[in-house]
């Protein structure tokens, strides 16, 4: 048997596995490939390398993918990370475009994030949605997010609240607190349907921004992400 490089061996296995072993054609093909001189296998090896490079990664291997890119896994029956990112990105675009925060004279406006109700059959942390919104709004200079105040009186960052109180105590002055100008709340809903083997799931992201002073809604947003298919896929 000729000496083959490990890459060539892999290539032989890949090629011959595609034919049934009992077929005369496959036997001849395998024999021909194995009897070739190693130097004449170089074009095959190069072709195999190019095929592997172009067709993705070998099965079973792990790779890093861009979480914001289109090569992430898409499940029909699940809200994937890209769905949260898409909804957040769209919400921010809409909010930046309409700029409801301009109603407040003292800029940047102070925002507090309230409850985002998960009305789906899945379990996830709603911070997957709200964190991206907060980052984009703070980076855009439109809002400051209050972390020493929270839902039911529970501070998001208790240490920051305690440190503020301690500073105020030591300084003998009450802690300077700026109350939120706006409160963001929302809901995530789902709708399921099927036709034959094809499933369709719609996920509805609803957000409401309320002006605390007036108690009126300053901005409303809804985005529906509909996924249809029979099985999960890599890429979308």
């Amino acid at each position, binding site marked *: 048997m000729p000496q083959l490089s490990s890459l060539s061996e892999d290539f032989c296995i890949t090629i011959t596995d595609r034919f049934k072993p009992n077929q005369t054609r496959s036997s001849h093909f395998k024999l021909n490939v194995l009897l070739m001189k190693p130097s004449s296998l170089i074009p095959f090896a190069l072709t195999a390398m190019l095929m592997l490079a172009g067709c993705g990664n070998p099965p079973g291997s792990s790779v890093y993918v*861009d979480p*914001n*890119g*289109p*090569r992430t896994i898409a499940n029909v029956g699940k809200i994937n990370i*890209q769905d949260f*990112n*898409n909804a*957040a*990105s*769209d919400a*921010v*675009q809409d909010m*930046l*475009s*309409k*700029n409801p925060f*301009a109603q407040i004279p003292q800029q940047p406006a102070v925002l507090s994030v309230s409850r985002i109700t998960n009305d789906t059959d899945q379990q996830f942390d709603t911070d997957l949605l709200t964190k*991206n*919104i907060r*980052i*984009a709004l703070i*980076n*855009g*200079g*439109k809002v400051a997010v209050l972390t020493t105040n929270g839902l039911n009186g529970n501070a998001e960052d208790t240490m920051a609240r305690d440190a503020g109180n301690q500073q105020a105590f030591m300084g003998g002055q009450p802690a300077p607190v700026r109350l939120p100008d706006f409160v963001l709340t929302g809901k995530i809903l789902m709708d399921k349907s099927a036709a034959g083997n094809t499933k369709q799931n719609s996920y509805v992201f609803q957000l409401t921004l309320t002006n605390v002073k007036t108690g009126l809604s300053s901005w409303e947003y809804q985005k529906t992400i509909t996924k249809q298919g029979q099985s999960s896929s*890599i*890429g*979308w």
Partner: protein
Amino acid sequence: MKITHLHLRALLGTALMLVAAGCATVNSVEPANPESKPKMVNDKRIITDSTLNRIAYVEGVVEGTSPGGLKRVQVTLRNMTSNVASVSYQFNWVDDQGIVISSPTQQWQAVAIEGGQSVPIVSVAPTTTAKDFKLNLLESVGRASTVLPQ
């Protein structure tokens, strides 16, 4: 099983229906003399995928300012084929030094375009420091094409 003339006609009919369903294209109506005065942007295109350029042909780029004072652009894509196509796109905004501004809005988004349909995609600059944009287009999980402002 004996294939009769009726069977053949039924098969042919089904095949025609399937072909017709896959090739449905969009008809549209708009004012002949529109009141809007879009500010068109001269764009520079880097086409690496001619197939993608047919299913998501960039008809035009319009620039404007949002009510919040941020720059915004609208790119109109047209599917020049008669089949529905899925395209992913991503807007990147850059500051006056040409550096990309990192933002959660850099997310790739998917858009399905019916045959012959024209679809506007809009992006608002994440900050007031954003000066220019760059749009990346990708067919499904295929190859990339880019549109840049000139």
